[in-house]
């Protein structure tokens, strides 16, 4: 009985770790830069595919790929924000108009990235195995790659949290999240901070995708959208703008998903969606906010 419970608990955490990372990334983009990036999942997909390519053609292990992927995708996100969202911000007549416009721009981005992936890698599903040997934890059996994923997500999440809390840039980000105008008056270069946030968001997504690919998940160019949805749900669960909440919320949702999957595989999305509906109707401010 205890083993079963642990099995579910740890299994859920493994899934949840990735959810937590991608939710934090999404939360940064929406909470601070106010961009509803529905292309978020596409960068998860890109991260996964890049890792696949590096692994299958160059033999670079995923954990080493991280060293390349992290800065690369950060730069991609930063540049995308500068090219699209910064001018959009100045051109929009109001905050609401910007939210709508940036969401539509993200939609366009989704289409571009998804089709780019389709062209580059083709539609048949791909996958690779890495560290697939089993490991025993407290009586239950798990795949080593999933344990590594969990550890990695916790490390990355904590590292980012420390960054937000202790560094100047981190403080600037938190200031911009609370009040962009005031932050700008205080000397924060707001355009740069917003672009940084977006860059971090994309980086988190790519790292999430990297970790995801490690867990022997099947890759396909259309895999991104469900993760965007998961990120949205987690962010709503944790409370918009609440980074810690998004992190914890990811684990909670991962647990739920794992439980549902073990009972009835394939219905975890339905479960997530029902949770989403429930949240929006009953407590749209999130379960984890004060």
């Amino acid at each position, binding site marked *: 009985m205890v083993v079963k419970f642990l099995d579910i608990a740890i299994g859920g955490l493994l899934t949840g770790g990735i959810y937590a990372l991608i939710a934090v990334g999404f939360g940064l983009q929406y909470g601070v830069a106010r961009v509803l990036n529905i292309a978020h999942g596409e960068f998860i997909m890109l991260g996964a595919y890049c890792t696949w390519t590096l692994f299958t053609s160059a033999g670079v292990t995923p954990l080493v790929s991280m060293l390349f992927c992290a800065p690369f995708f950060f730069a991609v996100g930063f540049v995308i924000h500068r090219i699209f969202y910064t001018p959009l911000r100045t051109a929009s007549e109001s905050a609401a108009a910007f939210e*709508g416009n940036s969401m539509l721009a993200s939609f366009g981005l989704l*289409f571009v990235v998804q089709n780019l992936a389709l062209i580059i890698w083709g539609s048949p599903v791909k996958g690779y195995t890495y560290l697939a040997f089993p490991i025993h934890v407290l009586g239950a059996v798990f795949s080593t790659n999933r344990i590594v994923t969990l550890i990695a997500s916790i490390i990355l999440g904590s590292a980012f949290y420390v960054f937000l809390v202790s560094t100047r840039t981190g403080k600037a980000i938190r200031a911009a999240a609370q009040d962009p105008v005031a932050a700008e008056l205080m000397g924060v270069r707001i355009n740069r901070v917003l672009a940084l946030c977006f860059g971090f968001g994309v980086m988190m997504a790519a790292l999430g995708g990297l970790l995801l690919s490690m867990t022997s998940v099947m890759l396909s160019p259309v895999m991104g959208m469900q993760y965007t949805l998961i990120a949205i749900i987690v962010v709503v669960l944790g409370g918009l703008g609440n980074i810690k909440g998004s992190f914890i919320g990811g684990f909670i949702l991962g647990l739920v998903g794992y439980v549902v999957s073990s009972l009835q595989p394939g219905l975890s999305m*339905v479960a997530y969606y029902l949770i989403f509906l429930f949240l929006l109707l009953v407590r749209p401010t999130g379960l984890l906010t004060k």
Partner: protein
Amino acid sequence: MRNPVSMRKTPSRKRRSFIALIVLLALLATVPGYVSSYTVILITNILMYVVLALSWSIFSGPTGYISLASAAFFGTGVYASALLSSDLPLPVVIVIGGIGSFVLAFFVGALTLRLKGMYFTMFTFGLVELVRNSVHWWEVNMTGTVGRLIISADNMTIFYCMVGIFVAVLVVSYLIKRSRFGLALESIGESEEAAAHSGVNVTMVKSVTFAVSAFFMGAAGATMCMRWTYIDPTTAFSIQYSFMPVLMAIFGGMGHLYAPITGATVFSILEELLTTKFPYYYMLIFGLIMLAVILFMPHGLEGVIEKGRKKAMRRSAVGT
């Protein structure tokens, strides 16, 4: 996102548009008599997108709520057709497909339209994934197959059905705009609070409009299904059916009834041209066009024309 409305159409302008429409419909009715089978298929495709773009605008135009759920409703119609078309006549199947989407949209709308616009949009985005996932799960676990084979209908039948749906959308669109329901809808788009305090049941009006727009998307899906020999959840609920109507409607501008028609026609023809030249890249190109449209012409073609007209007026004024 909404257009700066150009000058109200004067009676003569209205009459001209109406006559143009009648001519267009007459042409459409007789077209199969003297064009190739390929052209008939092309026009059917164009009409499908026109219907999707128009339906999308019926709701998202006046209210400003951006729905990304079109693929969910279209796909529902496709599946209605796939399941029923061997037993029931096509027109009945089309109506059933429409009703299925209507009910789904009403239910989702009643629950989520009381929320802020962004939440609604996120929800509609998720709806496509949800429905696709659910259908996939059902097919795998309950019926054993993932894809389905379709007994197709002939191109002529499909063409006329699509024309019929197109006319229906236009008629309904027009009736809504002229009715008190349409006035309520417009007022909701401007200020929900003021509308509610004037006695308008805002959530109900939004939900019904959303459901009406979904009906036509479902009907279009049920019709188009007959053109394909094989369907599965991924193709039926493809995100492109959410993406294209939005792009088309925004490009055309969201002010007048005919604006989505312009956008839809332009892009369907563009799609047709590009699929032959760049079969792999054309979707990518559309994505890039969407980005360009959002950045440079957020009020669509109408907005651009309007800006040009204003500039011309200013120039002539300065000259005096």
